[in-house]
């Protein structure tokens, strides 16, 4: 039986979060949901990783990242402009955004989030 390329490997998610504890938690949570995970501590590092890797399927980013040249919202727009196929999940403990406030192919989930919500949100985006 042939297994198609897209089904053979786990989907790869890039987690962007400036707080160490929250990043660790998000990484472990998304791994637990069945994805491979890369991590970045700010938007600039995330852009660097995206420029070097061509296998990232989803960017999962915090919005409130005051240190660095851009916050998560600007990162989401940059990803949409430069890497249109990549899906984007944004999250924030402070802001409550609607999916319409975000670039096409993005979703917003509020912090704190559950494994179930993270898992469902990522899968829904990938299936679009």
């Amino acid at each position: 039986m042939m297994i198609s390329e897209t089904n053979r490997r786990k989907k790869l998610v890039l987690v962007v979060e400036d707080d160490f504890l929250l990043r660790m938690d998000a990484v472990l949570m998304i791994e637990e949901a069945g994805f491979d995970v890369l991590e970045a501590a700010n938007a600039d590092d995330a852009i660097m990783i995206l420029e070097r890797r061509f296998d990232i399927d989803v960017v999962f980013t915090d919005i409130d990242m005051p240190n660095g040249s851009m916050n998560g919202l600007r990162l989401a727009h940059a990803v949409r402009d430069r890497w249109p196929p990549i899906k984007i999940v944004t999250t924030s403990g402070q802001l409550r955004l609607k999916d319409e406030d975000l670039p096409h192919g993005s979703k917003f989930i509020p912090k704190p989030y559950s494994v179930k919500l993270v898992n469902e949100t990522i899968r829904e985006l990938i299936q679009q």
Partner: protein
Amino acid sequence: MPAGDTTRSTVASMNQELSAAGGGLAGNEDVLRSVLAGCGDCIKILDLDGRLQFMSEGGKRVMEVEDFGKLKGCPWPDFWTGDGNSDAKRAVEMAKAGSTGRFRGPANTAKGNPRYWDVQVSPIVGIGGKPTHLLSISRDITEEWRATSELKEAAGRQALLAGELQHRIKNTLAMVGAIANQTMQGESVSAAREAFSARLMTLSHAHDILTQTSWTSAPIKDVVEGALTPYRSGRGRIQVSGSNLDLLPKQALALSLAVHELATNGTKYGSLSADGTVDIEWSNEPTETGNGFRFTWTESGGPSVKEPTRKGFGSRLIEKMLANDFGGEVRTFYHPGGVVVELVAPMVRRPQTQVSDL
């Protein structure tokens, strides 16, 4: 009824009321003089072009005018600047047209002291029903205005504080959520519950220390001692030494969680499970590598220890979070005599004041 007739009928009824109040009051000019001298409002008469013609005695007092001769004939709206100037001109036009113009605004007294005024300008109607002069009455409402603006400022500060507090609470909730998620992994319910409560207490203690400085910094000694408190009463001895340093909020939270995890491990498996000791030391001196801050946790006199085969959340808090939030490196050595954990990082701040060193 034309405006002039209204005024005349008001005068008639006023004279009636004055006669009823006492003999010799009606038509007595001394009554008018006493009113003008006694009234704390600044009562002025302007000509129809808004030029100052007369100012009451009480008015000179509140306006701090010593020589009215210098002011007489000056355009009254020019005493007001900015919005007040156009408001005053508009009020003059309204009074000229027969109605009353009102506004509020700031203007200095003749001696340059700032005051805030409630102003009304109305026509003085002569025979024939047309305004011949304008009456301008300004009431000093500086106190009231100050109180109002202070209230507004206080409300603004309050809103800012509430926003800041909200922000902090959200961050703390996210942190607690992450600790809960990670603590509940693969442990029995009762063990997880105990570990979670202990971590929350550590976090809470670090918050107490940070609250004292409005979340700007935390003295390292307080952070370390706070995290050690539950372990002071057990077996083994803990010694702490190091200079007074101020940690950033992030560093304070990371260090208190790390010290808590180290002490927990020490109590379960290390020197604090026997009659051993823990030496906690730190130093902060410039070095060639740039990593001038060194923090060490040295256990001795306990059972021999081996590197664990599986590293859990506690180890991550010690090795990863501490390294990340200090921007340095953490190394763990499993010496036969006990565990040694060492953090080297860029220098941290010295305290602004040295009072607590004394």
